[in-house]
């Protein structure tokens, strides 16, 4: 009748000031962390099937081609991301939120979705967007400042990026409630971060999804930082444990292991589709870059930490495995390199060609059915604009 949390046993000094100062020595050191589902070690070795039998079966029959596909996805996503970062530096974008380091979490989970599933991203799910078939250049519009969301969510069942932290988890839950009502054979996946886990909306989405047994997977990319705040500012126990208190399962997966992410997400989505309700997946990973291009991580974390995580690079890991198993040859890698270059080039060209929106776009789509005040203001704006044209003409 008493649930004692292991982490809560040791008394701490009761002052906020007494909490250990960050940067932490090594926040993600596996030894101090709870076990996580891992199918590929950081050294690129396949973990025995027995250890994670429940999840392993979801990737048991994976073919070398599929593995190469995952590798390709990660490489191209990283390339796209790097291109966007450099486009920001060149002034073509106002801002960029890089996913560097989180490719496995995103490609693994994204590839686990089916076309009929629906995805609710944050603002960093460029890899998931890739898996959903969203043209990556469309993601850049909002970062360039030409729109607030440049794709049709229903074309790829990939919702718009949501910036207000956590709010999309409720939209995802509502959508999943709708799927259930429709008896659809599909599920929803909602992405959020470790920082977002503190928002009331995320907790409410856990409550609603549990009460209505909604077919939704909550996919938390714990990249260990919310801008400058380490995860210990959000929770004192591992995040996947949050689910239990709401009555559904939580799993921690190695977020740098694309195979494990694929397997665990498939398992969770399957549960949802089978009518077993929500699941929380915590993908334990690391934000290798800055929060966004506006951020300066040197102010709050040591370089050592990043270096330690480079050794666990998700792409390197799969490459080692592919090579050691002879699943990919030189030709494959060379071809991919060329494809990568081509992608970069296309992104650069498309962004530079992206026109500024028409001024009247301010007044577009404020309402679906129109609104007298918007009409009035649009007309005033037009008259005002025209007054300059007149002036010039005079």
């Amino acid at each position, binding site marked *: 009748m008493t649930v004692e949390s292991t982490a809560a046993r040791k008394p701490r000094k009761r002052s906020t000031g007494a909490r250990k100062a960050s940067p932490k020595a090594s926040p993600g050191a596996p030894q101090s962390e709870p076990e996580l589902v891992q199918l590929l070690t950081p050294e690129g070795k396949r973990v025995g099937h027995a250890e994670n039998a429940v999840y392993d079966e979801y990737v048991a029959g994976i073919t070398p081609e599929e593995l190469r596909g995952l590798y390709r996805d990660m490489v191209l996503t990283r390339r796209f991301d790097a291109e966007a970062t450099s486009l920001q530096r060149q002034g073509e974008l106002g801002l960029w939120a890089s996913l560097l380091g989180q490719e496995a979490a995103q490609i693994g989970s994204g590839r686990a979705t089916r076309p009929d599933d629906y995805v609710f991203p944050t603002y960093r799910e460029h890899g998931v967007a890739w898996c959903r078939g969203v043209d990556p250049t469309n993601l850049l519009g909002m970062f360039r400042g030409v729109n607030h969301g440049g794709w049709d*969510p229903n074309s790829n069942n990939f919702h718009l990026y949501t910036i207000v932290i956590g709010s999309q988890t*409720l*939209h995802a839950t509502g959508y999943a409630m*709708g*799927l259930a009502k429709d008896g659809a054979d599909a599920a929803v996946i909602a992405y959020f971060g470790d920082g977002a886990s503190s928002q009331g909306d995320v907790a*409410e989405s856990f409550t609603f999804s549990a009460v209505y047994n909604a077919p939704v997977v909550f996919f938390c990319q714990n990249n260990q930082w919310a801008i400058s705040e380490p995860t210990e500012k959000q929770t004192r126990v591992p995040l996947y444990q949050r689910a239990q208190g709401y009555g559904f399962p939580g799993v921690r997966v190695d977020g740098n292991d694309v195979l494990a992410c694929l397997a665990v997400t498939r398992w969770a989505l399957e549960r949802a589709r089978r009518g077993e309700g929500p699941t929380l997946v915590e993908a334990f990973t690391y934000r290798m870059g800055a929060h966004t291009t506006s951020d300066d991580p040197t102010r709050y974390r040591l370089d050592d930490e990043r270096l330690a995580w480079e050794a666990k690079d998700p792409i390197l890991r799969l490459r080692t495995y592919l090579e050691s198993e002879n699943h990919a040859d030189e030709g494959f890698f060379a071809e991919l390199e060329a494809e990568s270059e081509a992608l970069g080039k296309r992104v650069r060209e498309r962004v530079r060609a992206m026109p500024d929106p028409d001024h009247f776009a301010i007044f577009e*789509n404020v*309402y679906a059915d129109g609104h*007298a005040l918007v009409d009035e203001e649009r007309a005033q704006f037009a008259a005002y604009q025209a007054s300059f044209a007149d002036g010039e003409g005079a």
Partner: protein
Amino acid sequence: MAVEKMALAKAINESLRTALETDPKVLIMGEDVGKLGGVFRVTDGLQKDFGEDRVIDTPLAESGIVGTAIGLALRGYRPVVEIQFDGFVFPAYDQIVTQLAKMHARSLGKVKLPVVIRIPYGGGIGAVEHHSESPEALFAHVAGLKVISPSNSSDAYWMMQQAIQSDDPVIFFEPKRRYWDKGEVDTEAIPGQLHKARVVRPGSDLTLVAYGPMVKVCVEAAAAAQEEGKSLEVLDLRSMSPIDFDSVQTSVEKTGRLVVVHEAPVFLGTGAEIAARITERCFYHLEAPVLRVGGYHAPYPPARLEEEYLPGLDRVLDAVDRSLAY
């Protein structure tokens, strides 16, 4: 049988029933809307007849209610959400303002959110804190929302029909102290435009503009003024976003005087916008500044003070006198 006399609450109930019958995508969501039929019985009997799948008792979490309603709308549903009392809409304010109001624009028109949020509002029922507020200006200021309020049973029925049919999010303020007022509803009428004001009582000396619970007060004030030989025109605004300034302008061009009445605090209330805009439109017609009667810049007071706080007949007539004295 199309014309029936019914209380305002019942008219909304009938309207919701009609919507549930005609469109399988319509859902009712909220706290206690099921078996209890809502604390005001506005959803009475609907769960019994349409099932728990369409009339949904939700967890006690307003952000969750609106947030999941957004998700359901994205899936093609048309949720009609109940907030139990005006003061309890604020936990949902973030979802309403940053998501519900903006998602259509954010998606460049790709996504539509036909969500209706029903909020019983206003005072006069002797309730405890948070149960008597009029927060409409806090929604009308936000682009992307439509904000309306019926003052009588017929409008309650038809404006709810139109709100549900609208592809835009609509904040539907229900004048709770008028829930029990009866009026005729013609369920086969051809409704007027949703956002058009209505002349409730024609007059020539001064225009009174009100909406929701204050329309009745203004009509009574006009009747009292009539006895003193003053002819007041009463306009029921019906919509606070958009506001039908054309109708107000037409009236003020005739009368030359305007008093706006609402329960909400005067400071930055909808009356401020009406005063500012009508003064601009009718600068040479106005014989007196636009006057406003409304709540004070203070929290809604305890019940035993609400009679002093709320605009009543006397305060409206006082403003009328002041306006006519110019």
